[in-house]
């Protein structure tokens, strides 16, 4: 893919790595009294997983339908925690995302004997924002989403390996 011998500070991988490491530092800094109790470990697990998803979504920003959907989900979750009356605001943003992705090419079903409607719907559940995507967008977004997930896994693996020794 990229030339492995050149540092690319603007690559998705480095953007994600920087953000995620920063988040990990913050999480580590929150030292409770018993940092090894199962409850604390589970809490840290949730924070780390959220940080991984957040870092990825923010590294992609709003360039993709799936990242927009993820960012919206993350933001509405934090709004709801602060302000219980923000339900209406979230609804409007969701419509905006839906409009953006289904303006042209509104066919979402190809029941013409090719027979992959169910598989496509299953995929829609797995890709953020997938429910609003037509088939074309779904396939395109999925490819990018997979690339980002593999980057995420690759970086997290390297970090875990580093701390394992």
């Amino acid at each position, binding site marked *: 893919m990229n030339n*492995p011998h050149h*540092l690319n*500070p603007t690559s998705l*991988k*480095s953007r994600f*790595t920087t953000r995620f*490491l920063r988040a*990990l*530092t913050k*999480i*580590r800094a929150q030292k409770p009294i018993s*940092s*090894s109790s199962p409850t*604390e*470990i*589970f809490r*840290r*697990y949730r924070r*780390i*997983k959220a940080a*991984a*998803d957040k870092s990825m979504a923010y590294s992609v920003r709003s360039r993709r339908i799936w990242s927009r959907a993820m960012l919206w989900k993350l933001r509405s979750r934090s709004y709801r925690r602060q302000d219980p009356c923000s339900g209406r605001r979230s609804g409007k943003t969701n419509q905006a995302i839906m409009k953006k992705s289904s303006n*042209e*090419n*509104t*066919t979402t079903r*190809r029941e*013409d*004997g*090719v*027979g*992959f409607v169910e*598989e*496509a719907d*299953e*995929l829609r559940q*797995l*890709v953020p924002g997938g429910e609003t995507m*037509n*088939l*074309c967008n779904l*396939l*395109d977004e*999925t*490819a990018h*989403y*997979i*690339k980002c*997930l*593999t980057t*995420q*896994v690759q970086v*997290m*693996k*390297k*970090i*875990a390996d*580093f*701390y*394992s020794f």
Partner: protein
Amino acid sequence: MSGRRSRSKQSSVSSITDDQITDLVSKLQHLIPELRRRRFDKVSTSKVLQETCNYIRSLHREVEDLSDRLSQLLASTDSDSDQAAIIRSLLMQ
């Protein structure tokens, strides 16, 4: 691939062509380890989508496992000075 519709038969709203779908599906096929070896076989769209779902689910699980692993590892490490080293070694690859 048979069944190439003439433009006049399609509704004016739909402008997705069979070729577009085929291209996107084959692009996906190349990303999925299970299917990459069968690059020159005809894999049905249904199979590609199925394997895509399985692959995404396994990636999600990997992220969860790694988060779990990290949550245990972070409990025992203290120093912050390794960070610069990590970043450097990660980005060099």
